[in-house]
C-alpha cells in the first residue's frame, strides 16, 4: 500500500484541529495583511491551506517515513510564510526543521533495519534517541528549542499562530506516538525542565510575541510530562492539553497580532491602555490568558487538572509540584502582559508611530477570526467530557471542589505574586544567554572549520600529489 494511514481518535482530532486553526487564520488574515500586495499577500492567503493539507496528511500517515515527509513539507510551507516577514528567521526555521526531519529519517532508517517496518508507534530503545532528537527540534525540547522564540516572535502573526498552534504540536503528536515504557522517565524530566525554563524565560520578556513563544515551550512541557506518565490517563491528558493549547495559544497570538496592528508595536514597554482602544481584542486576550492560567470554565483548567490527576495517580509528586509552581508563574506572566498592554496608562513615548486609523472591515475580520478559537476554548472548558472520556475519567471529577480550589488557589497566588513583583517585572532585564548563543558559537566554529578546509585547497599541485600518495598508503593499510 502506497499510503498507509493510521486513523484513530488521536490523529483525527489533530487533523480537525489543523483544519479549525486554518479556518481561523484564513478569516483573520485578510484583516491583517491589507497593507500588502503581490507575492506576499498571495502567500499569506493560500499557503495556510497547503500547510493544513500537509499537516493533516502528516498526522494521518501510518508510517514514520510518510509522517516525516509531510511534516517536512508543512515546515517548508511555513518557511515560505515566515520568509515574507523575516528572511533570517526563515532560514533558521528551515535549517532547524530540516535537521529535525533528517534525524527523524535516520531514526526511521534505523527502525527499519532493526524491525523491518516503519509503522508509526513506539520504537525500540536503540533508535529512540534519534526519534526524540528529531521530534525534539519540532517540539522544542530543552536546548533543541533554540529556534522557537526567535522564529515565533519574528514571523507574521497568522504564521505565528499556525506555528504555535499546530506546527509544534506535530512534534508533540509524534512524541505521543512514541509513548512506551522506555520513554517515561526521559519525557517526565524533559517536560518538567521545559515547563520551568519556559515560564522563567517568559517572565523576563518585553516583546509580546516572544513572551507568548516562551509560554509555548512551557505549555509543551506540560504535554510532554503528561505523556511521560505513561498511563492512559496521562496520554489523554497530554492529548487534551495539546488540543487546548493549540486553540488558546493561537488565540493569544492572534490577539497580540491585533494589538500590534492597532498600536504599531508589540513591545510591552511602549504599550498601554489598549483595553480602551480595542476592547474586543482585550476580551479575546482575556479568554486566552484565563485559559492558559487554568481558570475554571476554560479549556486550560480541564486539561491541566487532568494532567495533575495523572501525575498524582502515578505518584510523581515532584513533577506535580513543579507544574503547580509553573502554573503560578504563568499567571504572573499573563497578569504582567495584560497589565502592561491593556490596563495601565499609556506610556508617553514620542518615538511611537502615530496610531493608524482603524479600518473598520479589517478589524471586524480579525475579531471574527478570533471568535472561533475563543468559542472552542470555552466550549472545551465547559464540556470536557470527550477528552476526559478518552482517559477513562469522569467529567465530574474535573469539576470537583478540590480541583477548582487548587486552580483558583494557583490563580490567587499568581495574582498576589504579580502585585508584589510588579515593579521588578516592569523594569528591563539584562539578556541571559540561551541555547541560541550555543548555536551562534557553533556557527562561528563551523565557519572556521570551513575556512581551514579551504586553505588546505591551496592550489599547489605538489601538495595535491602528496595527499594522493598519502591516501594511497592509508588505503593500503586499510585494505591489508
Amino acid at each position, binding site marked *: 500500500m502506497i499510503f498507509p494511514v493510521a486513523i484513530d481518535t488521536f490523529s483525527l482530532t489533530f487533523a480537525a484541529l489543523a483544519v479549525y486553526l486554518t479556518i481561523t487564520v484564513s478569516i483573520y488574515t485578510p484583516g491583517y495583511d491589507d497593507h500588502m500586495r503581490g*507575492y506576499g499577500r498571495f502567500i499569506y492567503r493560500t499557503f495556510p491551506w497547503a500547510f493544513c493539507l500537509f499537516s493533516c496528511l502528516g498526522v494521518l500517515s501510518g508510517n514514520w517515513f510518510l509522517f516525516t515527509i509531510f511534516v517536512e*513539507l508543512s515546515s517548508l510551507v511555513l518557511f515560505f510564510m515566515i520568509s515574507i516577514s523575516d528572511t533570517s528567521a526563515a*532560514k533558521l526555521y528551515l535549517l532547524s526543521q530540516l*535537521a529535525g526531519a*533528517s534525524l527523524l529519517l535516520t531514526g526511521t*532508517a534505523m527502525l527499519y533495519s532493526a524491525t523491518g517496518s516503519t509503522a508509526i508507534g513506539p520504537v525500540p530503545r536503540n533508535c529512540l534517541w534519534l526519534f526524540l532528537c528529531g521530534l525534539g527540534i519540532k517540539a522544542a525540547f530543552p536546548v533543541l528549542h533554540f529556534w522557537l522564540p526567535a522564529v515565533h516572535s519574528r514571523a507574521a502573526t497568522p504564521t505565528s499562530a499556525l506555528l504555535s498552534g499546530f506546527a509544534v504540536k506535530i512534534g508533540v503528536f509524534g512524541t505521543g506516538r512514541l509513548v512506551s515504557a522506555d520513554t517515561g522517565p526521559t519525557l517526565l524530566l524533559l517536560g518538567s525542565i521545559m515547563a520551568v525554563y519556559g515560564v522563567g524565560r517568559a517572565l523576563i520578556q518585553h516583546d509580546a510575541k516572544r513572551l507568548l513563544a516562551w509560554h509555548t515551550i512551557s505549555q509543551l512541557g506540560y504535554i510532554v510530562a503528561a505523556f511521560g506518565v505513561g498511563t492512559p490517563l496521562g496520554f489523554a491528558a497530554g492529548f487534551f492539553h495539546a488540543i487546548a493549547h493549540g486553540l488558546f495559544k493561537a488565540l493569544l497570538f492572534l490577539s497580540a497580532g491585533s494589538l500590534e496592528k492597532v498600536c504599531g508595536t508589540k513591545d510591552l514597554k511602549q504599550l498601554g491602555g489598549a483595553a480602551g482602544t480595542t476592547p474586543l481584542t482585550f476580551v479575546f486576550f482575556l479568554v486566552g490568558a484565563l485559559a492558559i492560567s487554568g481558570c475554571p470554565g476554560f479549556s486550560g483548567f480541564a486539561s491541566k487538572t487532568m494532567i495533575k490527576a495523572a501525575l498524582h495517580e502515578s505518584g510523581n509528586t515532584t513533577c506535580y509540584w513543579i507544574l503547580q509552581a509553573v502554573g503560578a508563574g504563568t499567571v504572573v506572566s499573563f497578569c504582567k502582559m495584560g497589565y502592561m498592554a491593556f490596563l495601565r496608562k499609556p506610556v508617553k513615548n514620542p518615538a511611537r508611530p502615530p496610531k493608524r486609523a482603524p479600518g473598520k472591515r479589517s478589524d471586524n475580520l480579525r475579531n471574527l477570526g478570533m471568535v472561533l478559537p475563543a468559542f472552542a476554548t470555552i466550549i472545551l472548558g465547559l464540556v470536557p467530557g470527550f477528552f476526559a472520556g478518552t482517559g477513562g475519567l469522569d467529567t465530574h471529577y474535573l469539576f470537583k471542589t478540590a480541583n477548582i480550589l487548587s486552580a483558583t488557589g494557583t490563580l490567587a497566588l499568581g495574582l498576589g505574586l504579580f502585585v508584589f513583583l510588579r515593579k521588578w517585572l516592569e523594569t528591563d532585564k539584562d539578556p541571559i544567554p540561551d541555547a541560541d548563543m550555543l548555536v551562534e558559537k557553533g556557527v562561528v566554529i563551523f*565557519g572556521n572549520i570551513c575556512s581551514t578546509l579551504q586553505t588546505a585547497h591551496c592550489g599547489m599541485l605538489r601538495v595535491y600529489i602528496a595527499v594522493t600518495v598519502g591516501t594511497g598508503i592509508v588505503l593500503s593499510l586499510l585494505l591489508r
Partner: protein
Amino acid sequence: MSLVLAVVTPLLCAFLIPVFHLVWKTLPVCLVGVMGLASLAASLAAACTGWVSPAASLLGGWPPDLGIVLVADRLAAPFMLLTSMGVATSLVCSLEKYGGGPWRYYAIFFLLAASMNGILLTADLFNLFVFYEIFSVAAYLLVASSMSWQAMEAGLKYLVLGTMGALFFLLGTAFIFMATGILNMALLPEALSVVPRETLTVISTCLVLGLALKTGAFPVHFWLPDAHSSAQTPVSALLSGALVKVSVYALTRISCLFFLSNGGGVFRVITIMGVLSILGGHLMAFRQDDIKRLLAFSTVAQIGYILVGVGCASAAGIAAAVFHAINHMLMKMGLFITSGDICERVGTRSIRAIKDTAGVLPANVAIFTVFALAIVGVPPLNGFMSKWFIMLFSVTDTGLCPALAIAAGTIISAAYYYGVVSALVGSVVRRNTGSPGNNDLDSPTVSASSVITGTFAVLCLLAGLAALWPPMQSSFLSIGETAVDIEGYARLVLGK
C-alpha cells in the same frame, strides 16, 4: 551486434568531422545534430539491449577468453542511459552557444561520448584502461577548450592527477596480469581468489586509488572543483552530470566483481571515502562565493552519497546509488546550465555580486530553485528519495555513521543553497519592484537549453514520485542484483 555500434558510431562521427571541415569551414549545426542523434540512438539501443536482454558481443569473432568482449547488462544500461542523456543535453547546449564553429571541440566531444560507452561496455581490464585514457584525454581537452588561463591551469592539474590515477590503475592491472595472466573481467573473480593476500592488497589499493582519483572522491578530489569551475557551461554540466558517473560505474563494477568475494575491505574503504566526501564536499561548498565552484564542491558531496550507496555492498545499496547517480545527473546538469545562463546574463559568477544585479530571467531562477530544492532533498523530489534510500540501506549494511553524515550534509547543503537561491530570487524580486520603465523587455526567448532544463525539472519531480512506485523499486533492485551477481556476469560474458 548493436553493442559495438554504441562505441563505433560516435568514433566515426569524430573521425568524419575533420573531413567535413574541409568542405564547410563552419560545420552546419544540423550536421552535428544528426551525428549526435546517430550516436544517441546507438547508445540507447545498446542500453535497451542491456536492459531487456543482457547480451555480450564478441569482437573479431574470437572466443571470450582470447579476444575482447563487450557486455551490456542491467548495471551498464542505466549508466548508458544516463551518459547518453548527459551527452545529448550538453551537445544541444554547445550547439546553441557556439554554433558549428569550433569543429575540433565537437570532434573531442564525440570521442568522449565513444569512450564513455566503451568504458561502460567493455569486459576486459586493459581495454577499460585504454578507453579510460581516451576519456581522460578528451576530458582534459574539453576543460581547456575555453582557452582561458584558468582553464589551462585546471586542465594541467586535471591532467597530472588524472595521469597519476591512470598510472595507478595500470599498475593494478599489471599486478593482476602478473598474478593471474588474465585480463578478462569475467574470469578474474575466480582467478583472484588464489592470489596471495599481499598482492591482493596492492591490486585493490592501486585500482581503488586510481578510480577514486578519477571519480573525485574526497581526499583525492582536488582536480574536480578546478576543472568544473573553469570549464565552459556545457562542459561543466557534462563533467558533473555524466563523466564522474562513468568512473563511479567503473568503481562499482570492478569492486563488485573482484573484491566482493575476495576480501570485502574495499567496500569499507569506499564507504569511508563516501562519508568523507559528503562532509568535505559540503563543508568546502559552504563558504564558496563562486557559484560554479560551489556547485562543483556540491558534486564532490553528491559523489559521496553515491559511494556510500556502493559501499553497502548489497543489491539494494547499489540500486540506491545508481538511482542517486541518475538523479544527480538530472539535478546537477540542470543547475550548471541554468546557473551558467544566469551568470552570463549577469556577467559575474560571484554570489555576492549577483545580489546587486537585477535583470535575470525569472524562469531560469525558478528552474534553478527546483533543482536546488531537489539536491538539498525536499521530499517529493528525486534527490530526497535517493538520499533516503541510500540512508536506509547504509544503516542496514554499514551502520549509523554514514546516515548521520547524510543528515548533516542535508542541513549544510540547505544552508548554502539557501544563500544562492535567496541571492537569485532577491535580484528578481528587486527587478520586479524596481522602476518599470527601463526593464529591457527582451521577451523571454525560449532557448533549447531552457526547454531541456525545464524538462529535467519535471523529471526530477516524476522520478521522485516514481521511486515510491513498487514496480519501479523492483526494477531498480534488479540493477543492484545484477551488480552483485558475479556468476551471472561470468555466464553472460563467457556465453555458458
